[in-house]
């Protein structure tokens, strides 16, 4: 019987099949750990006298609670609270006690967990990958089955390297056609979520397919898979192809016999004739640069289109919270903050796209722009290309890697009432700070907005750039 990519990865990891009475036991190849969702899991296994069963399959980083400003003159890191610092030290202690590798403060590898894993070649096609973080679906871009888990389950994986799972349903999202210039993986993600709906993916694992998806680079694919949870889906996956193989080649931790592994990875693709529980098709050529107008990630529309008339009390509340008006575009609202970074859009091509818009231009006076690379590797590469100089010259702040203003628990916050355009993944009420208002968009859009001071389609600037080169 023809199998989907999801079927193939799932079947290869079933230790014990599910029955009516009990879920299946699923083996986990890679467990990524960070400071926020792990302390109670380590406490739990220690209370039972258990050790981390496979430290070799476990890898930790510091990202959520970490400051993105350097240590002060006193040598102290500017943690937002003593509790945030204590949480970081708790993970350092837990990793030392259990022999878990930690990309800590002194490591060149440290980064936002979903940026770091692929960079280090820890994430590989066909693997099962989990983390106590809902954006773990990012790793599905490599053809891994990757999903977020709660802290109890973090404890389960630490203790047994397995999870109790019932298999999800399958959905294929096919994005046909060729993407227009200036349209990125983020725009595809926002268009897909708008099409499926915020809870439309609940209970499903999504496979993204089609010419437009194939045309994305690995970073664009990671952005797309990253936001699967914003449609409610547990995971998002893309079949490995030559783009995947070329991206991973030469990275730390990939198999020694790389070409043999790569040949095996290519067999993971969904078989012709495999049946999905649900199919969704989008016209990729019709996707424009997207931005959200509401307080859920599915409330997205092409930049410049009017805010839709509310269909529910929830819509009315969202539009009121955002300070927008139904029937009017949001492109005339002054923007206070622009944030570029996160596990969604904190990678090198994201920073390049933003820098391309900002080069030779200035951030609108009074607007605060924060650029936070997703990892130390991204920071090194960006600085080697001089991108940081572009950002700084434009008037933006260039920070140390971390989750920063995406989850806003490290002190990087949007002030009450301020309007932010962010390349992150959630525009929930108060997500970026109490009473902060968030518009989600691509890095190019965020950069264009920083220059114009209002939400702006980046193609305006990209056209100018192209025009100037032709003169």
């Amino acid at each position, binding site marked *: 019987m023809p199998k989907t990519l999801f079927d193939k990865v799932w079947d290869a990891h079933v*230790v014990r099949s599910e029955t009516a*009475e009990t879920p299946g*036991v699923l*083996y986990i190849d890679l467990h990524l750990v960070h400071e926020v969702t792990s302390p109670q899991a380590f406490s739990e296994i220690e209370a039972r006298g258990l050790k981390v069963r496979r430290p070799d399959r476990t890898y930790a980083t510091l990202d959520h609670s970490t400051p993105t400003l350097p240590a002060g003159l006193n040598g102290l890191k500017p943690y937002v609270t003593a509790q945030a610092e204590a949480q970081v030290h*708790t993970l350092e202690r837990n990793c030392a006690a259990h022999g878990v590798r930690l990309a800590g403060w002194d490591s060149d590898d440290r980064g936002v967990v979903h940026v770091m894993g692929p960079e280090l070649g820890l994430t590989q096609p066909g693997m099962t990958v989990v983390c106590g973080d809902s954006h773990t679906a990012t790793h599905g871009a490599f053809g891994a089955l990757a999903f977020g888990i709660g802290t*109890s389950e973090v404890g389960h994986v630490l203790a*047994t*390297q397995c999870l109790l799972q019932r298999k999800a349903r399958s959905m294929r999202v096919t994005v046909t056609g060729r993407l227009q210039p200036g349209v990125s993986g983020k725009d595809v993600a926002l268009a897909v979520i708008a099409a499926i709906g915020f809870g439309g993916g*609940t209970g499903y694992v999504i496979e993204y397919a089609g010419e437009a998806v194939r045309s994305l680079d690995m970073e664009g694919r990671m952005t797309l898979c990253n936001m699967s949870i914003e449609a409610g889906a547990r995971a998002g996956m893309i079949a490995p192809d030559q783009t995947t193989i070329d991206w991973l080649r030469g990275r730390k931790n990939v198999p020694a016999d790389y070409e043999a592994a790569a040949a095996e990875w290519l067999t993971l693709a969904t078989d012709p004739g495999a049946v999905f529980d649900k199919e969704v098709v989008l016209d990729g050529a019709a996707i424009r640069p997207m931005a959200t107008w509401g307080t859920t990630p599915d409330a997205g529309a092409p930049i410049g289109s009017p805010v839709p008339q509310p269909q529910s009390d929830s819509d009315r509340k969202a539009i009121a919270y955002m300070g927008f008006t139904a029937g009017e575009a949001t492109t005339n609202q002054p923007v206070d903050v622009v944030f570029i970074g996160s596990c969604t859009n904190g990678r090198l091509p994201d920073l390049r796209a933003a820098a391309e818009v900002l080069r030779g231009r200035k951030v609108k006076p009074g607007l605060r722009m924060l650029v936070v690379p997703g990892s130390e590797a991204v920071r090194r590469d960006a600085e080697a290309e001089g991108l940081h100089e572009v950002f700084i010259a434009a008037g933006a702040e260039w920070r140390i890697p971390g989750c920063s203003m995406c989850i806003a628990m490290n002190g990087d916050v949007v002030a009450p009432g301020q309007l932010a355009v962010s390349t992150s993944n959630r525009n929930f009420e108060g997500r970026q700070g*109490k009473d902060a208002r968030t518009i989600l968009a691509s890095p190019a859009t965020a950069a264009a907005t920083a220059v114009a001071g209002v939400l702006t389609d980046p193609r305006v600037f990209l056209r100018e750039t192209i025009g100037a080169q032709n003169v």
Partner: protein
Amino acid sequence: MSEPFQVLTSRTVTLSQANIDTDQIIPARFLTTTTREGLGKAAFYDWRYEGDGSEKPEAILNRIDPAEHRILLAGKNFACGSSREHAPWALYDYGFRAVISTEIADIFTSNALKNGLLPIVVSQAVWDDLASQPDQPVTIDLQANEIRRGNALPVPFGVESFARQCLLDGVDTLGWLQSNLPEIEAFERSRETI
């Protein structure tokens, strides 16, 4: 581990808004804790407290006695968003023992079931009916898999069978998972020989 969940009779409190995300249930700034205790105060914090920490007297969750309102009747797609288990920890510590909605996010469902908080999905008609009579106590009978209220016909509901048994017995799943260690080891050996 939480107490066993068998039969619960309580009044409900309704938060009808759709898409109540985990950042509403517990804002991220409360996630720097390293324990699971005492998060009830943080539950729906920004809905219950002003920026200066003073209570919002109009907030429904400040007006009710949590001990008498163990059941949260929530709008569609409840607890969407992040994987933070702090969400069910906070709701449980506040006093909730069950959440009823027409749709509940996957990861939250998994987390809630491991913490003595029963997530129940019902049809819109049942939800509307429950919301229409907020003062009438509701009985959730996990033994019988049904919701009862007054003289109305019992409404059946489904819960994943293994999680249900764990809730009924008040035991967690790690012990059972560990009992599979021989199979897990055999699985690892079989893969290493490929």
